C-alpha cells in the first residue's frame, strides 16, 4: 500500500511540473463549460425573416406583429417576386419567408379558412424545422385567440415549402462539416507530427546541413497528405452521394478548388504548429486542442453560429473552416456558382495566403 502511495505522489509531481499540460487539464474543462453552457445553444433567436404581405389587411398585420413580437424573429417587411425570393435565399441571411396571399382576411371571414405560405431554407434542416415550427405555433396561437366563441372555428393553414432540401436530409448539414473536419484533421495533425518526428529522430539536423532548401523538406512532407486528403474527399463525396443520398447541385470543380484551398491552409497550420512543438506528443495536443475543437464549434455544422453571442461570432470569422462550410453548402446544396460565393472565397483565399506566408516566414533554418 505504501508503495502505491509512493507512486501516486510521484505521479502528482510529474503532472504538476508539466506546466503546459496543466494548462490544458484545467483550462480546457473551464473553457468547455463556459462555451457549451453559456454560448452555444440550439435555440434559435433573432432570426431574420421576411414577410411578404400581399393582403395588407388588419389580420395579416396582426399576425405579422405577433411574429415579430417575441425574440425568435426579426421581421422585415418586403414584397418580393419569385426571383427576388430566390435571391434572398441565395444571400443566405434570411431563413424563412412568410407569404400572405392577396385576399387573406377576406378568405378567412367568408370561407372560414385561409392559407399562409412558409418558405424555409432547408439547407440546414434542423434550423428550417425549428423556425417553421416556431412560426406555425405563433400562427396557431393567433388562430386560437381569433374565435373563442364561434361555432365553426376559423382555420389558418400553413403551407410549408422547404427549399434546397425538400426531404430535410440531415446529411446536407453534416457532410460539409465532416469534410472540413477530415481535411483539417489529416493535414494539420499529420503534417505537424511528421515534421516534429523528423526533428526528434535527428535526421532533420542532417537535412538542414545540406544544400537542400529546408523549406522543400517541409513541402515534401505535405505532398502525401495533400494527395491523401483529396482522395479522402473523393471517398467522402462518393459515400455521401450514393449512400446517404446527398445532393451535389453545383460545380464539382469549384468544390475541389475550394477544398484544395482549405487543404493548403491546413498544411500551413500544421507547419506553424511544428515550429513551436518540441515533441510529437505536444504537436498532437496542440493540433487537437488548438485546431479541432475550434473547428467543431465554430464551423457552424454543430451549432448555428447565428445564435452565438456576438463575441463568439466574431471569433468564428477567424476560423477558415467556417467559410469553407458556407461555400460548400452553397455549392453542393444550393447549387450556387462562383458569382454567389466569391466573397467567402476571397476571404478563404486571403486566410490561406496569410497562413502560408506566415508559416514559411516563421520556419527556422536552424535548430532552436
Amino acid at each position, binding site marked *: 500500500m505504501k508503495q502505491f502511495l509512493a507512486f501516486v505522489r510521484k505521479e502528482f509531481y510529474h503532472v504538476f511540473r508539466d506546466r503546459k499540460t496543466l494548462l490544458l487539464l484545467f483550462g480546457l474543462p473551464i473553457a468547455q463549460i463556459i462555451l457549451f453552457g453559456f454560448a452555444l445553444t440550439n435555440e434559435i433567436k433573432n432570426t431574420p425573416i421576411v414577410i411578404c404581405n400581399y393582403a395588407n389587411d388588419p389580420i395579416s398585420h396582426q399576425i405579422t406583429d405577433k411574429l415579430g413580437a417575441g425574440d425568435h424573429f426579426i421581421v422585415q417587411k418586403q414584397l418580393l417576386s419569385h426571383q427576388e425570393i430566390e435571391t434572398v435565399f441565395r444571400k443566405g441571411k434570411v431563413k424563412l419567408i412568410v407569404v400572405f396571399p392577396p385576399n387573406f382576411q377576406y378568405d378567412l371571414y367568408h370561407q372560414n379558412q385561409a392559407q399562409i405560405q412558409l418558405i424555409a431554407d432547408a439547407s440546414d434542416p434542423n434550423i428550417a424545422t425549428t423556425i417553421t415550427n416556431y412560426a406555425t405555433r405563433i400562427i396557431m396561437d393567433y388562430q386560437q385567440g381569433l374565435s373563442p366563441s364561434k361555432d365553426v372555428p376559423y382555420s389558418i393553414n400553413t403551407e410549408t415549402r422547404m427549399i434546397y432540401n425538400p426531404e430535410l436530409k440531415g446529411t446536407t448539414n453534416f457532410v460539409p462539416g465532416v469534410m472540413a473536419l477530415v481535411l483539417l484533421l489529416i493535414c494539420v495533425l499529420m503534417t505537424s507530427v511528421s515534421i516534429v518526428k523528423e526533428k526528434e*529522430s*535527428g*535526421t532533420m539536423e542532417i537535412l*538542414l546541413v*545540406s*544544400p537542400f532548401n529546408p523549406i522543400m523538406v517541409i513541402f515534401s512532407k505535405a505532398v502525401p497528405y495533400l494527395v491523401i486528403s483529396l482522395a479522402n474527399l473523393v471517398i467522402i463525396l462518393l459515400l455521401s452521394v450514393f449512400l446517404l443520398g446527398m445532393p451535389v447541385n453545383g460545380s464539382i470543380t469549384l468544390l475541389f478548388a475550394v477544398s484544395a484551398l482549405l487543404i493548403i491552409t491546413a498544411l500551413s497550420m500544421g507547419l506553424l504548429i511544428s515550429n513551436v512543438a518540441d515533441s510529437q506528443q505536444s504537436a498532437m495536443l496542440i493540433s487537437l486542442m488548438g485546431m479541432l475543437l475550434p473547428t467543431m464549434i465554430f464551423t457552424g455544422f454543430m451549432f448555428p453560429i447565428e445564435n452565438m453571442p456576438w463575441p463568439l461570432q466574431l471569433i468564428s470569422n477567424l476560423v477558415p473552416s467556417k467559410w469553407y462550410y458556407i461555400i460548400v453548402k452553397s455549392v453542393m446544396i444550393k447549387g450556387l456558382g462562383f458569382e454567389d460565393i466569391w466573397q467567402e472565397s476571397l476571404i478563404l483565399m486571403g486566410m490561406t495566403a496569410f497562413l502560408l506566408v506566415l508559416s514559411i516566414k516563421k520556419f527556422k533554418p*536552424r535548430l532552436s
Partner: protein
Amino acid sequence: MADVLLENISKTYEKGSIKAVKDISFAVNQGELFGLIGPDGAGKTSLFRIMTTLILPDKGHASVNGLDIIKDYRQIRQKVGYMPGKFSLYQDLSVLENLSFFATVFNTSIEENYDLIKDIYIQIEPFRNRRAGKLSGGMKQKLALCCALIHRPTVLFLDEPTTGVDTVSRKEFWEMLHRLKQEGITILVSTPYMDEANQCERIALIQSGELMSIDTPKNITSQYPKPLFSIKASNMGKLLKDLRKNPLIDSCFSFGEYHHITFKKEKQEGVLVKQLEQLNHGQVTIQGIEPSIEDCFINLMNR
C-alpha cells in the same frame, strides 16, 4: 590555412542559466584529423552544431572554409559533411535507400563519389536491403559515415561516432578515418573516450564548456607537470585508501590494474614503498610511466 576557425565562441541555454560553451577559440588546419575530447555535457555537441550552422552562438565568430557561419551558412551547408550523435538515419528505409536519398539531397549520386566510400560500404553491402533500424551499432555507424561522405565534403564533422559501439567496430572506424584523411578531407571528431585521443593529429580537451588544452597528443602529455608513477600491490582497494591518506602523495587515481600517483616532492618512491610495507601491503611494485591523455585530463580538471 585554417579550415575551421572559432573565435571567442560562447553559448548558453535556458535564458543564460546553462552555460554550455564558455569563450572557446581554436583553429583546425586543412586536412587535419582533429579530436574534441571530453565527457557528456562538456559542450562538444553544442560546438559541432555551431560549426555546422545549426545553432547560433551567443557571442563570437566562426568560419568554415573561410565562410562565416552566420552570414554564409547556406554555402557552408553545401560543402560540409555532418554525422550527428545517434547516427540519425531513416530507420524504416533500407541501407541503399538511405544512401541514395542523401546522395540526391546533395545533388550527387552514389556512383559519382563511390571511390570515397567504397572501403566502408563494402562492409555493409551484404545488408544493403536491410532496414537501417535493424542494423547493429557498428553497421549504423558505417552507413551514417557513408551518408556524410557521399558528396565529397571538404570538412567532415563527426559528433561522437564511436559512442555506444563495440570495441572492434570502434577500431575499424578509426582505421577508416585514417584512410579518409589521405583524401585531404579535414575531419573533426568528438569523443568521450580518452584513449581515442591518440588517434588524432591534434586534440582539444574540453570540460564544462571550457577548453582545457589544445595541442598534439604528444605535446599535451609532455606537459604533464610532474613525474607520474604506476603502483601496484596485492590488495588494490586497501592500497588506494592508504595512498590517499599518505602525506607524501599529491594525487592518486585508479587506472585499471595500477594506480597512478604523483608525489609532492621528488624521489620519495623508496620512502613510500617502505611505508606501505609497514602497513602490511604485499608485492608492492612501483615504476615511472609516461602519462596518458586521461592522466592529463584529470590533472587539468583538478586545477
